[in-house]
């Protein structure tokens, strides 16, 4: 089973009543050790997909398996491989953080080998753990949920918008922790609508909209195909045709400053423009956010 995909969905569908399709014919395979960002706006079906993967919701079509264990037929074995942080984290507010953590630890067959390290990394000390959860801030609850999910060093880590409620320092710390887990061969399935963190952490992204999978692509490949904004400053008047290359958009000239867009590799442009001795060139880094916007805004509904 260890060679099986970490997550494999085949024709996965979920409908509510007549005509309300939350997920439609999703085929997705996540390899062991992969970091996959699962992107989509609110209501796209990200949480529904995750809940179907964990047997919290019952798929109405297709199947989904974790490390080869089908979630409907072999739920216990599948869940023993997973550490999960729900987006809407529910905790029993009347108990202390320590008791909640120990209780959740006892429900998992794997020992909590990473508990101490995670508590230190996320700065949850004995004082915080001694408080009742009703006295926790949203961020503290989120940190407790993260420790509870990751403490067993699960082979498959499924996180549904895990940085919500965390301050920027803790967000960065969490991404470091996840990066470390991934480098040790754990699979990270990371649902988010914050593109920056997916860009930073993930190898591949899957994008969903309206319950359908739009694309699954390598992050680097997406960046390479992205249109960049270029700004060139000359110290004299220059005709844009002198440096025109394939993939360039229309050039807007303001004084000695030229603005245009460029798709694809910027190498040929630099080769053509270099002999013209520009004073400054700014090529805005291709961002995943631009891809995301293009897909959601450009493709139409």
């Amino acid at each position, binding site marked *: 089973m260890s060679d099986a995909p970490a997550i494999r969905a085949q024709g996965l569908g979920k409908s509510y009543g007549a005509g309300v399709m939350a997920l439609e014919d999703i085929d997705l395979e996540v390899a062991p050790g992969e970091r996959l960002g699962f992107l989509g706006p609110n209501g796209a079906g990200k949480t529904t997909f995750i809940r179907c993967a964990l047997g919290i919701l019952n798929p109405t079509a297709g199947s989904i398996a974790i490390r080869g264990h089908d979630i409907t037929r072999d739920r216990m074995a599948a869940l023993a491989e997973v550490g999960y942080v729900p987006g*809407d984290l529910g905790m029993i507010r009347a108990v202390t953080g320590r008791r909640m953590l120990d209780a959740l630890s*006892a429900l998992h067959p794997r020992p909590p080998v990473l508990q101490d390290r995670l508590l230190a990394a996320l700065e949850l000390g004995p004082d915080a753990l001694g408080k009742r959860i009703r006295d926790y801030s949203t961020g503290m609850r989120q940190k407790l949920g993260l420790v509870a999910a990751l403490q067993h060093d699960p082979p498959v880590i499924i996180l549904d918008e895990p940085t919500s409620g965390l301050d920027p320092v803790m967000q960065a710390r969490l991404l470091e922790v996840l990066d470390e887990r991934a480098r040790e061969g754990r699979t990270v399935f990371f649902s988010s609508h914050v593109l920056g963190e997916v860009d930073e952490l993930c190898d591949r992204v899957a994008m969903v909209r309206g319950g359908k999978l739009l694309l699954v692509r390598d992050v680097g490949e997406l960046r390479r195909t992205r249109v960049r904004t270029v700004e060139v400053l000359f110290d004299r008047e220059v005709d844009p045709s002198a440096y025109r290359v394939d993939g360039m958009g229309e050039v807007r000239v303001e004084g000695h400053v030229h603005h245009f867009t460029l798709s694809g590799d910027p190498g040929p442009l630099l080769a053509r423009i270099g002999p013209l001795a520009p004073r400054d060139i700014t090529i805005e880094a291709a961002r995943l956010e631009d891809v995301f916007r293009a897909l959601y805004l450009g493709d139409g509904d």
Partner: protein
Amino acid sequence: MGVVFSLTMRRAIRRVLLLGVALGAFLFLVGLSYSSVDENQIRSLVESLPPALQAFVKGSDIASPAGYLGSTFIHPITLSILAATAIAAGAAPARDVEHGVAELVLSRPVTRTAWLGAEVIAMVVQVTIVAIMGFIGALIAITTVDALAPVSVGNLAITTLPLLILFIGIGAITMLAGSFSRTAARAIGWGTAFALVAYALDYLAQVWGLAEPLGPLSVMHWYRPATILGSGSAPASTWIVLSLVAVVATALAVAVTSRREVAP
């Protein structure tokens, strides 16, 4: 299973102890008040009441020690305290679904049957704690009030037991309603409605001839505490019907929960 039980009990224990103290104090105080009762005056007073009011004590002789103390077991305060305990405990699984606790627990390798089983046991334990504290209050009354001396401890215990099963059944009905629902409020609503309809049906069957045949449809019909307290035994039908309600409702709740979705 033990973990879920422990978490559920920790959340409920303060409420349960408060309700238990309230029930114990109530049964003790009512028992204590019997020392100031003149049997004959009470008997003539009850006989002078219209049938609609006599029905509140299910026709028992409340002037007698067993009838007086037995009537407190079906007093609205006793029933309300036990119903509050059973319904709150029975709604716990629905509350856990609503607040995402079920999602957190069941995303770990825990079966739904084990999860609900732990909640059922917690519900039974909570109702039992409150019933036992009520029993203790009544026990203190019969051991300290001379006029209640004819009531034996054994009879008191055998009267408390079907009361306990009756409210475990109401808790199980609430749990069954909760297994169809994503909110605790709906489960509490159905549990409360079941208890109120059962009480009303039993009452109507006693005061209105036309409704009399409907009486056995109410679980309350099968519990006659004054009779049990006086005789020291409950009819087999009491044990069978009350146990069946609890067992069937629990089994149905488990069956529905094993297939239900537990997302908030």
